[in-house]
């Protein structure tokens, strides 16, 4: 009864949505406001003004840099909340024990993961560093590196993977992304007088590219650390 009611309400709701969608400009047309507005300016002047050949990296790190700064703050905040929920919980309130997790992966999985780990790490670093000339960038490479740490945790155990990083450095790695943005912001204040402002003289193209690569490395390392910590904490606590 409830499902039939919900289904019929959603079908009634679908009709105005589909009418609205049909009234939009044709998908793929060249004269829509999306194509002729600010996008045309970014595509034409982006490489020279912003310092990267991948225009999407230009937009997220230079033209719309504040959005990216608060995005990395959001993922760091969610990590802080997850750590607060799982590590600070008193075991008196937990009435159910964890299901058995003592199953080790098979020998084939362990061997292949340990064999492929260095190549995967190198590919992740390549994606991070090449984000300004090819598809890729900071968070993509960071997610691949984080996924590598997840598979290593499944195979080797969380204690050994977390033990590879000294205790004092773990917090610095997790906060690497917002910290890099803060440093770049202060550098922008010193160079141009605006927070996160890139120098706009024509001859300083190398400085803009350098700032973009530095921020990409910060986002990559921070994203990988956050993803790996999320997995280790959620799986073991």
């Amino acid at each position, binding site marked *: 009864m*409830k499902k039939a009611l919900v289904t019929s309400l959603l079908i009634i709701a*679908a009709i105005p*949505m589909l009418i609205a969608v049909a009234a939009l400009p044709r998908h793929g047309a*060249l004269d829509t406001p999306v194509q002729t507005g600010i996008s045309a300016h970014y595509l034409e002047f982006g490489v020279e003004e912003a310092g990267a050949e991948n225009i*999407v990296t230009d937009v997220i790190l230079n033209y*719309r840099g504040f959005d990216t700064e608060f995005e990395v703050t959001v993922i760091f905040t969610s990590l802080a*909340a997850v750590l607060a929920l799982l590590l600070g919980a008193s075991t008196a309130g*937990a009435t*159910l024990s964890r299901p058995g997790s003592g199953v080790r992966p098979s020998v084939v999985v362990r061997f292949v993961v340990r064999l492929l780990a260095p190549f995967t790490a190198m590919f992740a670093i390549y994606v991070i560093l090449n984000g300004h000339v090819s598809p890729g960038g900071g968070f993509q490479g960071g997610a691949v590196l984080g996924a590598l740490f997840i598979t290593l945790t499944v195979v080797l155990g969380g204690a050994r993977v977390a033990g590879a990083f000294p205790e004092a450095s773990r917090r610095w790695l997790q906060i690497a992304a917002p910290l890099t943005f803060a440093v770049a912001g202060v550098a922008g204040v010193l160079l141009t007088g605006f927070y996160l402002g890139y120098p706009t003289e024509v001859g300083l193209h190398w400085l803009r590219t350098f700032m973009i690569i530095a921020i990409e490395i910060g986002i990559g390392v921070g994203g990988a650390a956050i993803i790996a910590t999320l997995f280790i904490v959620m799986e073991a606590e």
Partner: protein
Amino acid sequence: MLEALWHNLDYAASVVLFLIGLYIVIAKNNLIKKFLGLNIMETAVFSFIVALGVVDGGDAPIMGQGAHPPFTSPVPQALILTGIVVAVSTTALALTLIIRIYQLNGTVEADELREME
């Protein structure tokens, strides 16, 4: 109108996916299943916004050798990159909350939790 809908097939598919996700959130009982539905809604919205910037025969917006206009618009793609990262952050936090709810109450079904109060 059907002709216009056929030209905008990407947008119509995003609407249908959004409504499927909304059905899962409203009509299913299990908290984890509700959260899968929320993720489907999020990716449907991302697909709609990326499809707004697509051009016929458009390349990826990367300048280099061999890149020729027309290009797909880069602004919606930048918006969606931030959106995907925020989606994974909320997924991590919500699943942690579901794990804590299970540890404290023994169930993750919404109607049983409502009875329990």
